[in-house]
């Protein structure tokens, strides 16, 4: 493995049993939230992970941090296999990898002051004590643009943007190498989104963080990311430099997604050809055979039904797309859907 890869997933699967709890506890089906993901997050980069609701992007982010158990494949963090990590090793991973959550109103314990919340990682990992701890909390609050004097206040006394800053300060307290932002700006107002985006960029540069920025907002992802990965039905379908994926996507799904993003330019909007996709995203409990996008793809042709496409070079250097339009590469589908879980 290359030295510049910090986090890496190979054939990662997160399947949830669904339906029928009861006494027998036998699953009625499998929800393939993450279904065979290969992903490398490079040291010091910001990788944007986009996709629509239900595509598994959030589950993937949680699985990479071992916050959701994976059911297949492996995860590596800084050269160490962390797939089955337990005890002290797992605790150390928690220090080195942090998470910022979507809803800043729900992610802070309403009964704990800002100082208590931000200090939690310090206490858990025994990093600072007493006066040192208070000083570090003040330092962290300042780092995220909050006045240290607010340390004694409770979350409800803050606005959404301020709370999100507290959440970021908590995630940074253990001096992590890796930060996952799971829809971290989705519930904020536009002007506040900009503040938080700028803050994340500044922190990333200043602290040399590696950032996984998960969002459904392609504009925001394009703005903050060095590379973009696009997810559809539990699989990465396109990945590459942000400029390439953001302006010249190679996978029909990415093209449709990009064309659907509304732009604040009336003249441009009027001329724009929008690719309107047919129907809804299939359920992750019933993934189509062959290419999983084929039920909605405007370019569907013969191999799409039978061959599950693998990521292959397409477009700009470093850009990859999982689409037969760039040559038929992938796993032939067997008659039953179980064949889908196999991955090259």
């Amino acid at each position: 493995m290359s030295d510049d890869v910090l986090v890496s997933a190979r054939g990662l699967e997160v399947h949830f049993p669904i339906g029928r709890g009861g006494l027998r506890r036998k699953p009625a089906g499998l929800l393939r939230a993450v279904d065979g993901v290969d992903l490398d997050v490079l040291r010091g980069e910001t990788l944007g992970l986009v996709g629509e609701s239900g595509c598994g992007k959030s589950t993937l982010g949680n699985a990479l941090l071992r916050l959701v158990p994976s059911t297949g494949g492996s995860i590596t963090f800084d050269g160490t296999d962390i797939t089955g990590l337990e005890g002290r090793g797992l605790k150390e991973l928690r220090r080195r990898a942090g998470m910022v959550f979507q809803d800043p109103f729900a992610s802070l314990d309403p009964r704990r002051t800002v100082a208590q919340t931000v200090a939690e990682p310090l206490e858990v990992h025994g990093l600072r004590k007493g006066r040192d701890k208070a000083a570090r909390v003040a330092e962290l609050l300042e780092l995220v643009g909050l006045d240290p004097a607010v340390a004694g206040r409770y979350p409800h006394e803050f606005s959404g943007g301020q709370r999100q800053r507290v959440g970021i300060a908590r995630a940074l307290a253990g001096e992590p190498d890796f930060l996952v932002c799971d829809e971290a700006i989705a519930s904020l107002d536009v002007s506040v989104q900009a503040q938080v985006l700028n803050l994340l960029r500044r922190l990333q540069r200043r602290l040399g963080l590696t950032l996984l920025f998960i969002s459904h907002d392609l504009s925001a992802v394009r703005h903050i990311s060095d590379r973009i990965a696009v997810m559809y039905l539990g699989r990465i379908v396109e990945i590459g430099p942000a400029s390439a994926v953001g302006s010249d996507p190679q996978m029909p799904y990415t093209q449709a997604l990009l064309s659907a993003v509304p732009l604040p330019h009336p003249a441009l909007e009027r001329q724009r050809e929008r690719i309107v996709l047919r129907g809804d995203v299939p359920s992750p409990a019933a993934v189509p055979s062959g290419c999983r996008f084929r039920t909605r793809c405007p370019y569907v042709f013969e191999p799409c039904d039978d061959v599950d496409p693998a990521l292959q070079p397409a477009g700009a250097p470093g850009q990859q797309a999982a689409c037969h339009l760039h040559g038929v590469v992938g796993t032939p589908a067997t008659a039953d859907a179980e064949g889908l879980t196999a991955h090259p």
Partner: protein
Amino acid sequence: MTGQPLPEPAASPTATDAGVPSTSRPPRPRWRETLGLLLRNPTAAGSALVLLGIVLMAIFDESIAPSGANQISVEDRLQAPSWEHPFGTDDLGRDILSRVILGAGVSLRVGFLAVGIALLIGTVIGLLAGYYGRWVDDVLMRFMDMLFAFPAVLLAIAILAVRGPGSGNTALAIGIVYVPIFARVTRASVLGVREEVYVRASRSVGASDLRLLTRHVLPNAAPPIIVQTSISLAFAVLAEAALSFLGLGTQPPNPSWGLMLAEGRGYIDLAWWLAFFPGMAIFLTVLCFNLLGDGLRDVLDPRQRTLMAGGGR
């Protein structure tokens, strides 16, 4: 106690780019702030005062009571309230005021002890069942259901039959009967809190189960438990009365409010004061516990707390 109104965020010129006002709040011990806020709520403060009075009365009973609990005076029997006997006398001529004062200790002791047992065991069981789920939940809660399936009085009678009557055993019996109630209330509340994002967030920074349970889950799951505690205190005092009435609780001639109420019941048309005054004592205590519980629940919520501290703005 003098909660400061929140400064308006936008008005502060020294605000950082996030617009947070830089006014600091002097640190103050949390319990004092809580107490201060509680006392600003007139209902809760009044209840606390009355309960304090009752507790003091129970502690200094011997020195306050005008006469002994079992001082029989046959010529004074069944006297209506008067200056000499403000609460009247019973069928044996005992001073009811004295017996109410001396009975307070028994009733409160049984109440507190019973609820204490139920709270401790029930909360721990509910916390573990709700937090860990799966087989832990199944095993613990099925056991609770079994306990719950027995009629409460029958269960208490069975326990007392094994351990023998007396106020200590009465408390134990009532406590065991109440364990499933606390377990259920706690579990239900924990089930909700367990899924909160802030619990996940704390886990994501490496907090252990013990830390999550004690620092995040329990404090946020507490309000219904606090309310349940205050209600149960009330019911425990009544349950002690019922068991005493059946002859299994406090043994005559020792006074307890419940026992007095039970004994006075037979004289209700003849001499209402026999049942009325111990009844009032129970009623007042129960009411105050409930009102105090409500106040406490509000004060322990930081959101309510700011509203209250913000005063009439």
